[in-house]
């Protein structure tokens, strides 16, 4: 059995199946939806950071742009929710295209420019001067399309797409080429890899899933403000979850989200500042002692982790 089939059968299918069944047995549907959203975002970060080495510090920009793409289509064109979700993905890709010049930057410069870009989109959307289009800082209310259970299953579909994408990257020559570019762009290009095309493809794929996730988030919550959907927490959480598990693997980001977001929900709501303290210490310990994530505990012993 080829590896790709194994990965789909033993990671993707069980993950989707569990999250498809859970709403029937567990009452807190919002929590489940948030889990799915963060799984998508963490895998999106995995695609761009794990496979190309670009740290998207303003990843939430695509998410928020997707949410507002959805909102604008529903508010002004009364389009059905599914069409609007697809449009949200398109908005993510367009924003990604607009930001492709950022890929010329490297290291910390890219991370900072990406952060600035996401804040620029936030302030553009929240600008009172554009109230006619985006309702500015006053937030949008999309009661017409409100349907949390459909939105939940749409999110699952996007999760399946995203994890499928990572499985593809993990098992294809395309993914291998991307990792070669990450390690040494010059050598990779000597070996016949089209560096620019590869990077842009990964960047747009990662923007697409964040845009779709943003659109579905807008569909699910239906009432939100610019500060909600552009909250820097989305970028940070997605990055930390992905890193905690281990990037450039399929299972790493999934493990990261399940453990860390689980812990967040256990203690985060009652005493946020103690959680923040534990969280901060955890992140620092992670970087200092386990920079390759939890999966490196296994890979160090020579076990193969997909």
């Amino acid at each position, binding site marked *: 059995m080829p590896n790709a089939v194994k990965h789909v059968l033993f990671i993707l299918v069980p993950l989707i199946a569990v999250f498809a069944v859970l709403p029937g047995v567990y009452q807190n549907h919002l929590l489940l939806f948030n889990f799915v959203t963060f799984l998508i975002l963490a895998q999106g970060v995995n695609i761009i950071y794990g496979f190309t080495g670009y740290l998207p510090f303003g990843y939430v920009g695509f998410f928020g742009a997707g949410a507002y793409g959805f909102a604008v289509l529903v508010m002004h064109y009364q389009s059905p929710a599914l069409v609007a979700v697809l449009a949200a993905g398109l908005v993510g890709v367009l924003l990604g295209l607009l930001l492709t010049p950022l890929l010329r930057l490297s290291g910390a410069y890219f991370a900072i420019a990406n952060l600035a870009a996401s*804040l620029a989109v936030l302030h553009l959307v929240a600008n009172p001067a554009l109230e006619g289009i985006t309702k500015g800082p006053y937030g949008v209310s999309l009661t017409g399309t409100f349907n949390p259970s459909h939105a939940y299953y749409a999110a699952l579909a996007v999760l399946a797409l995203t994890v499928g994408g990572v499985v593809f990257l993990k098992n294809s020559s395309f993914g291998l080429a991307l990792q070669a570019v990450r390690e040494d762009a010059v050598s990779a290009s000597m070996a016949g890899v089209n560096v620019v095309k590869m990077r842009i493809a990964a960047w747009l794929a990662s923007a697409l899933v964040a845009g779709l996730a943003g659109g579905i988030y807008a569909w699910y919550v239906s009432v939100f403000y610019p500060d909600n959907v552009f909250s820097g927490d989305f970028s940070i959480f997605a990055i930390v979850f992905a890193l905690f598990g281990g990037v450039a693997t399929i299972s790493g980001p999934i493990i990261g989200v399940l453990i860390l977001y689980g812990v967040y929900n256990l203690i985060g709501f009652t005493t946020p500042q103690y959680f923040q303290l534990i969280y901060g210490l955890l992140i620092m310990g992670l970087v200092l002692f386990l920079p390759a994530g939890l999966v490196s505990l296994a890979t160090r012993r020579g076990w193969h982790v997909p």
Partner: protein
Amino acid sequence: MLTYALVAGVLFGLYFSLVGVGLNLVFGVMRIVNLAHGDVMMLGAFVALGVVTLAGIDPLFAVPLAFVVFLLVGTLLYWVLVPRLQGSANPEMLSIILFFGLSQVVEAITTIFAGTSERSIQSRLLGTVFSTIKVRLFGGKPEAGPIRILGQGFPAPWVIAAGTSLVAIGLVYVYLYRTRLGTLTRAVMSRRDEALASGIDVDRVSAAAFGIGLGLAAVAGVFAPFMFGSITPAFGADATVTSFAIVVLGSLGNPLGTALGGVVYGVCYMLVQTYLSSWADLLPYVLLILILLLRPSGLLGRQVRVA
């Protein structure tokens, strides 16, 4: 109106360069992105608050206190965190995440001890030491109120903060170009491995730069309650982003470019604030991206740097 915007922009800009210069020193020497920069500023503001409420003296006295305390804290922190980080595969990226964790810890601890309420210091308290000296020497009455520049009145704290920033940046210049440790620091900045090979104790130099960087951030923080109105434990995150915009404008890795970056940022900010106020928030980020794309090395690029 234009004069007011320009002068206010320069005053704010000088203050902003003080905000950015510490961050830049740390990045220039260690290639480490200190995301906890804004949180150190926030702690500096709490030092000022402590000086005012406990001792009841001019918050200006908090400047040397904050600097010395955070110089020591920074040096200690360097030895705990950085050598381990430098040993990892991708220190520049991991530093972003490591210091994000640190900023969370600082914010959480401050919240646990100080609560989330907004705190401010009466602006007339700042600079009372000057008016007292003036009264002692020349007689007359202690006067408070705006300081007049070019026929326009500006709040006294703005002018004092800008003046302190000028002095601080001047001292950074003296440190880098007139002292032995500063020369070594510049050597490490331009080529870390060659500096190491020529027998420079890179860790010691870096620890000093890290301490000074944090000290400068704390000094900038002392003025934060006056420049931004009030202060909360959550202030750090926004301050960090603003500092980044300034540092990149001036060029990462060049502490003196930051002074220019700060002034450009301040003037642009005030101009947009005055004429197109609803777009003012957008400006720093667009400016940042444009500069990064058109002149990735900042206004004073690496080639121009005398190092």
